[in-house]
């Protein structure tokens, strides 16, 4: 009976998850495709360094290490979750137990990590609820975002508590016949109730797996979706130098035409799509992946020179806005009068960027903010002609005398005269 109930719940869970994925995929379909440049080896190495090795989050050594431990804990504990699903379907009890010593290692480290993760999560909750940490604030973080963060942490806390309960009652229930090794939970058996051991084991088992199922279905609607997206996002990182701003091939076409002998030769070709980024359909699939990956940790905003000095720009907000706007557009499924640039992100924010790339450098998951900001500036300038006045003057200087300032090219050797 238990097996049938489990299979039905698993089926519903999987179906709901697939529906969420399908919705996200249809959002991806709206974005622009870009050519993939391969470099699989380099990307794999980077994924091991940055994702599995947590190299960038460790730029803040203490909280970085706490996060790394939680992440590595999850890697180990996920093996146990897989086992639970197989046990649930087949009616077996700790089916991986046949692995012998390997299982002892996995179960022992999983048990240890359950406690480490639990303490990590309690510390994270403390940081969010009690301490006043600047980077958890910002105009882009409303009550909803903060609740979302706390819900995700609570889920993980309950997941760990139920896992520890499960381990404790494995030892209580099975005694000498315990499958696996539970060094930390083993210390708690004296406090456990031997009378209700079987019932409590069952309770924690169901609590743990149901939490996993509900959490998994919560994630696609949460910033915490980063647990799904972080690995692929790092794999598909921008491998170019941070300050390399990609060429606009559609502008190259126009420039080539202007410079060719017959500027009207190709004029029958349909006008290319919009220059730069105005709304979510102008962003690339990678920009949207960045938005889904962002877990709003605020390391980018914390190091942004514009933000530090009180300007409106917050690099994190760019990706929070993209995700919101994408969801809004998916809901209405037709054109509305709004746009990402203007209604979500103001020109004032975009013009405050110094393109210093401190944000991109700091992002633990290699999200690329400045190039996207530049793409939005491109829209403002190339489509709307809306640059700040001083910048229009700078453009005019470059056009007329080949320098951003008003100096004659004839004076270019004046430096030799000093």
């Amino acid at each position, binding site marked *: 009976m238990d097996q049938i109930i489990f299979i039905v719940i698993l089926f519903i869970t999987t179906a709901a998850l697939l529906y969420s994925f399908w919705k996200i995929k249809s959002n991806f379909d709206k974005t622009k495709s870009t050519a993939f440049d391969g470099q699989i080896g380099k990307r794999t190495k980077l994924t091991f360094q940055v994702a599995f090795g947590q190299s960038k989050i460790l730029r803040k050594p203490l909280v970085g290490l706490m996060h790394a431990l939680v992440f590595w804990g999850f890697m180990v504990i996920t093996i146990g979750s897989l086992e639970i699903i197989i046990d649930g379907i087949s009616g077996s009890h700790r089916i991986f137990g046949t692995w012998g010593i390997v299982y002892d290692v996995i179960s022992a480290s999983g048990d240890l990590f359950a406690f480490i993760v639990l303490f990590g999560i309690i510390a994270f909750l403390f940081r969010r609820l009690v301490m006043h940490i600047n980077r958890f604030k910002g105009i882009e973080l409303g009550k909803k975002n903060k609740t979302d963060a706390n819900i995700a942490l609570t889920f993980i806390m309950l997941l760990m508590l139920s896992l520890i309960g499960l381990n404790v009652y494995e030892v209580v229930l099975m005694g000498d016949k315990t499958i696996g090794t539970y060094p930390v939970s083993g210390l708690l058996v004296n406090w456990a109730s031997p009378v209700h051991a079987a019932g409590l084991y069952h309770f924690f088992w169901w609590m743990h797996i149901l939490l996993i199922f509900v959490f998994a279905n919560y994630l696609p609607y949460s910033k915490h979706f980063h647990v799904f997206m972080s690995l692929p996002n790092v794999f598909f990182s921008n491998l170019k130098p941070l300050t390399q701003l990609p060429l606009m091939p559609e502008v190259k076409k126009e420039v080539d035409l202007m410079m060719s002998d017959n500027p009207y030769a190709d004029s029958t070709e349909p006008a290319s799509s919009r220059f730069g980024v105005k709304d979510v359909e102008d962003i690339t699939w990678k920009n949207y992946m960045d938005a889904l990956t962002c877990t709003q940790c605020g390391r980018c905003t914390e190091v942004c*020179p514009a933000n530090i000095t009180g300007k409106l720009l917050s690099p994190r907000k760019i990706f929070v806005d993209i995700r919101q706007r994408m969801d809004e557009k998916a809901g209405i499924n037709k054109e509305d009068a709004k746009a990402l640039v203007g209604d979500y992100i103001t020109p004032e924010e975009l013009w405050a960027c110094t393109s210093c790339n401190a944000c991109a450098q700091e992002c633990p998951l290699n999200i690329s903010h400045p190039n996207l900001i*530049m793409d939005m500036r491109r829209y403002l300038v190339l489509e709307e002609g809306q640059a700040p006045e001083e910048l229009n003057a700078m453009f005019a200087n*470059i056009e007329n005398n080949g320098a951003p300032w008003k100096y004659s090219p004839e004076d*270019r050797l*004046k*430096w030799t005269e000093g």
Partner: protein
Amino acid sequence: MADLKAKGHQPEYLFWVGCAGAFDKRYQKVTRAFAQILNKANIDYAVLGTEETCTGDPAKRAGNEMLFQMQAMQVIETFNTYQVQKIICTCPHCFNIIKNEYPELGGHYEVMHYSSFLQHLIDSGRIKIKKDAFVNKKITFHDPCYLGRGNGIYEAPRKVINAFDVDYTELKRAKSFSLCCGAGGAQMFKEAEKGNKEVFEERTEDVLASGADIVATACPFCMTMLSDGIKYKNKEDSLVNMDLAELIEQNMDT
């Protein structure tokens, strides 16, 4: 460059002066200093002079890709006319764009930042310096974003400074953690957006906190920003901003 071509000589290096190097009163001194170093080290180089024009970087960063590409095509054409192969830039923004963004437009060159070149000249012994020129002076270095984070060059400028016997000190935010001076991304050419502070002020405070006597820079825009910051904080008596090339040029053993 044109003169040498007329004489049938192909110089090994092109020294790309850049707009700030040519026109900014303060940075002209740096251009002179670097040219002096090249002369003394007997480097076979030339400049484009009146044939140089903007690389298009400020236009590109301000969203004007059209203007950037037209400038870039013009520059590449000039490079090709003189069969330029090796380019040395003082400005990290020129360096970044010629090195990283010109190849997509067909311009492939060996591009060097002068900090790397200076390090090379010192290491190879082609220039000799008075090592004790800055004894008892505390020197710090401000990383230009387009050099450090952008292109991973952190060590060359530090090696150049530490070629002297100096009391070298790092800023609180240094290397990949460095804070921008506030001028990048075309900010140099516009007023800052509304805020509670100027970025150069914030960065100057880092420099002041380090207790340094000299803050070395390796970018014309950083120089403008930090020099302004020092003036703004009324610290001109106790803190000077010098370029890497000036540190060397003023203390060469001939």
